[in-house]
C-alpha cells in the first residue's frame, strides 16, 4: 500500500496548491460560466428576422398571403424581390439574403387544382444553425397563412396535407445542426480547454520552479506521480460539468432524456483522456509557455474538426479521419446522444471505445516520455 500512500501524498499537496492559487482556482469556476454566457446567450441558436428575397413568377392574392405569413412569423424579413435566378444566387452567395423564396409560374392555379405545387426555398446553410429553425417552421407558416384564403369551394384544400409542397434547398452545407447543439458541445470544449491546460501547466510549473529535481530525488514512481497529479483535476472537471449541465437544463432548457450513468461514464472518460493529454504535454514542454502553446495546438483542431464548430459530415474525408482521433469528437456524440436522443450504451459504444483507446495511447506516451531523471 506504499504506492497508494505516495499517490495520496502528491494528491494532497496538489489540493493545497490548488486551493492556494486563488486565481487559477477562480478561473476554473469562472471559465465555464463566462463561456456559457458568451456562447449560450450571444450565439443565438434561434435566430429570427433573416433577410429573405422573393423571386415571384406568379403573383396572386394567395401568394401575397403566403409572403405575409412568412413576414408575420418573424423568422423571415422580406427585404425585396429579384427578377432572375442569377440575382437570387448572387444574393445568397454574398450573404445579403439568407433565403430566397421562389414561387413558380402557375403556382396559384396548380394549388387551387389541388396539385400541391412546389414552393422552392433556397436557404444559406453555411451557418446551418442560423437557418434550421426558420426552415422547420415553414410548413406551419404556409398552412396557417393559407387558411383564410381557402374558404368556400376551396375549403377542402385546407384539410389534409398542406396544399403546397415546400422544397428546401440547404445551400453550401447539407447538414443542419440540432438546435441544442451549442450548450452540450460547450461542455466538451470547456473541459478540453481547462483540463489540458491545467495539468500541463501544473507539471511544467514544477520543472520551472526547480521542484522537479526534488520530486525526482524522492521515491515516487512515474505513474504514481501521474495519478496523484491528475486525480484532483478529475474533481475540478466534474464540478465544471455540473455547472454546465445545470445551466443547460435550467437556463437554456436543453432536454436531458438519456441515462445519467452513461453520461457520467462519457464525462469521466473524456476528463481522463484530456488529463492524460495534458500530462503528456507536460513531459514534453520545458516551460509553462510551451505548455500553453501545446494546449492550443491541440485545442484548435479539436474544436474545428470535432463537429463542434462545423457539421462533421460537412468536412472532407481526410478531415473527418483526423477528427476521429480527438476525444472531443466522440464526446460530443455521446453527449448529444444521451442528452438529446436518449441513446443507450449499446448505441454509444462506437464512440466510447475510441476514447478508451485514446486514453491508453496518451498514458503510454506519457509514461514513456516521463523522465525519471533530469536528462
Amino acid at each position, binding site marked *: 500500500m506504499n504506492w497508494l500512500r505516495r499517490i495520496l501524498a502528491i494528491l494532497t499537496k496538489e489540493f493545497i496548491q490548488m486551493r492556494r492559487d486563488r486565481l487559477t482556482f477562480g478561473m476554473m469556476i469562472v471559465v465555464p460560466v463566462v463561456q456559457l454566457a458568451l456562447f449560450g446567450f450571444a450565439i443565438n441558436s434561434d435566430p429570427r428576422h433573416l433577410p429573405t428575397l422573393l423571386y415571384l413568377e406568379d403573383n396572386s392574392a394567395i401568394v401575397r398571403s403566403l409572403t405575409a405569413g412568412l413576414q408575420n412569423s418573424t423568422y423571415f424579413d422580406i427585404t425585396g424581390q429579384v427578377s432572375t435566378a442569377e440575382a437570387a444566387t448572387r444574393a445568397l452567395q454574398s450573404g445579403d439574403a439568407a433565403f430566397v423564396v421562389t414561387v413558380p409560374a402557375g403556382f396559384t392555379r396548380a394549388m387551387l387544382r389541388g396539385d400541391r405545387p412546389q414552393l422552392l426555398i433556397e436557404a444559406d446553410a453555411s451557418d446551418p444553425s442560423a437557418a434550421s429553425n426558420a426552415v422547420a417552421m415553414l410548413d406551419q407558416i404556409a398552412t396557417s397563412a393559407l387558411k383564410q384564403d381557402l374558404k368556400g369551394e376551396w375549403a377542402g384544400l385546407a384539410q389534409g396535407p398542406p396544399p403546397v409542397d415546400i422544397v428546401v434547398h440547404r445551400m453550401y452545407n447539407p447538414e443542419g445542426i440540432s438546435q441544442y447543439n451549442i450548450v452540450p458541445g460547450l461542455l466538451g470544449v470547456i473541459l478540453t480547454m481547462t483540463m489540458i491546460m491545467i495539468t500541463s501547466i501544473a507539471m511544467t510549473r514544477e520543472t520551472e520552479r526547480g*521542484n522537479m529535481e526534488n520530486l525526482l530525488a*524522492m521515491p515516487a514512481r512515474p505513474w504514481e506521480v501521474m495519478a496523484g497529479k491528475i486525480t484532483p483535476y478529475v474533481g475540478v472537471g466534474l464540478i465544471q460539468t455540473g455547472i454546465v449541465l445545470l445551466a443547460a437544463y435550467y437556463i437554456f432548457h436543453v432536454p436531458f432524456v438519456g441515462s445519467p450513468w452513461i453520461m457520467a461514464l462519457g464525462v469521466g472518460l473524456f476528463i481522463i483522456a484530456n488529463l492524460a493529454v495534458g500530462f503528456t504535454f507536460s513531459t514534453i514542454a520545458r516551460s509553462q509557455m510551451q505548455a500553453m502553446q501545446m494546449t492550443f495546438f491541440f485545442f484548435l483542431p479539436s474544436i474545428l474538426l470535432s463537429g463542434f464548430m462545423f457539421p462533421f459530415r460537412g468536412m472532407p474525408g481526410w478531415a473527418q479521419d483526423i477528427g476521429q482521433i480527438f476525444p472531443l469528437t466522440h464526446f460530443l456524440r455521446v453527449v448529444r446522444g444521451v442528452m438529446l436522443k436518449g441513446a443507450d450504451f449499446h448505441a454509444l459504444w462506437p464512440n466510447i471505445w475510441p476514447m478508451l483507446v485514446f486514453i491508453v495511447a496518451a498514458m503510454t506516451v506519457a509514461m514513456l516520455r516521463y523522465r525519471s531523471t533530469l536528462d
Partner: protein
Amino acid sequence: MISPYTAPLAGRGVGGLSGITPNIAPPHLKGFTMSEPELAPELAPELAPELAIDVRGLTKSFGKLKVVDNVDIAMPRGQVWGFLGPNGSGKTTTIRMLCGLLRPDAGEGTCLGYDILKQSRQIKNNVGYMTQKFSYWEDLSIRENLEFVANLYGLKNRHEVVDQALETLGLASRAKQLAGTLSGGWKQRLALAACTLHSPKMLMLDEPTAGVDPQARRDFWDQIHRLSSQGLTVLVSTHYMDEAERCDQIVYIAYGKLMAQGRVEDIITQSGLYTFIAEGTGVRDLMERLRGEAGADHVAYFGNALHVSGSDLAGLRDLVARHAVAGITWRQERPNLEDVFIHLMGQSKDNSVRT
C-alpha cells in the same frame, strides 16, 4: 574569487586539523557527546559495505561539453566529505549522478551498496539530497512541505516526525509560514529538515550554506556534525574554505576532472606548492609587479599580506631576494587550502588546453 572567506581561515590556522587520523573524530566534534563513528548502529550491519560511495570512471557530457570526466570517488561510511571546485566544474552534475537523477554516459559503481545505474529507487529511499537551488514548494507552508515529504516516504507516525523535525530545527514557531516567504537562511534550514526527515543513511548537500550568515552557517555545520556522529555519511559541496576544513576529507574537481582527493593536510602537502608571505607597508603595490614574474605562479592579497605561491622553490627564493625592499618582511609559510585550490585550478586549465 574566494578571498572574502579567508579571514576565518587565517584566524583558525591550517594546523588546527593537522592531528587528524582517519578514524578519529575531527577536533571540532570533541565538544559533543558522541560515540565514535564506527560504533554507530547504522554502520554495524555486516552486509553494509565499507564504502558509502564507490564509483569509477563517472563521465557525463551535455552536448559536446564533457562536464564530468572519468571521476573516481571512494568514500568510507560515516565521514563528512567536502566537495569543492570552481563554478561549473561539475559538482552538482556529479551529485545528481550519484543519487540517480542523471544517467552517467560512462562509469559504474555503487552508492550505499546499491548500483547507481540500476538501483536508483533504493538509493533514493536511503539518501537525503538537498538541491543547490531551493526546491521545496514555495506555495506550501513549512509544515505542509514536511508532511508531504513524510507522506511520500511513507513514514509511520508522520505527525510526530514532522513535529520533531520542526522542534529540532527551531522552525516550530514558523510552521504555518509559506516556504516561499522564508529568508534564504530559513529556507536552507527547511531544506535540511526535509531531506533528513526519512532518516537517510547518507546526505548529499549541494552548497547548503550559500548565502547563509556566519552564525547560521555554524549552526548548520553543528547539525551536520551531529548527524554524522549518529552514523550518517555526508557529502557536502561548498565554496567556503573554512567549511572545507571542517570535513574529514575533501574532493576537488575542476572542469570535470578530479584534481585532488584526501585530507586537507595531505592535499596541501601533495600539491608541491610553496608559499611566501610579504607583510609591511606598500605590499599591495608590490602585487602588480610580482604578477607574471618568473617563479610566482599565483599572487594574492589577503589578511593584510601578500601570498606568493609557486611550485619552484628556488625560483621563488630568487624572486623574494629580488624584492627584499625595506619595510617589507618576507617569510615562508605552509600554503593554505585556498592557495592550493587556486593552484589546482590553474593546472586544470592547462590540462584542458592540452587535451
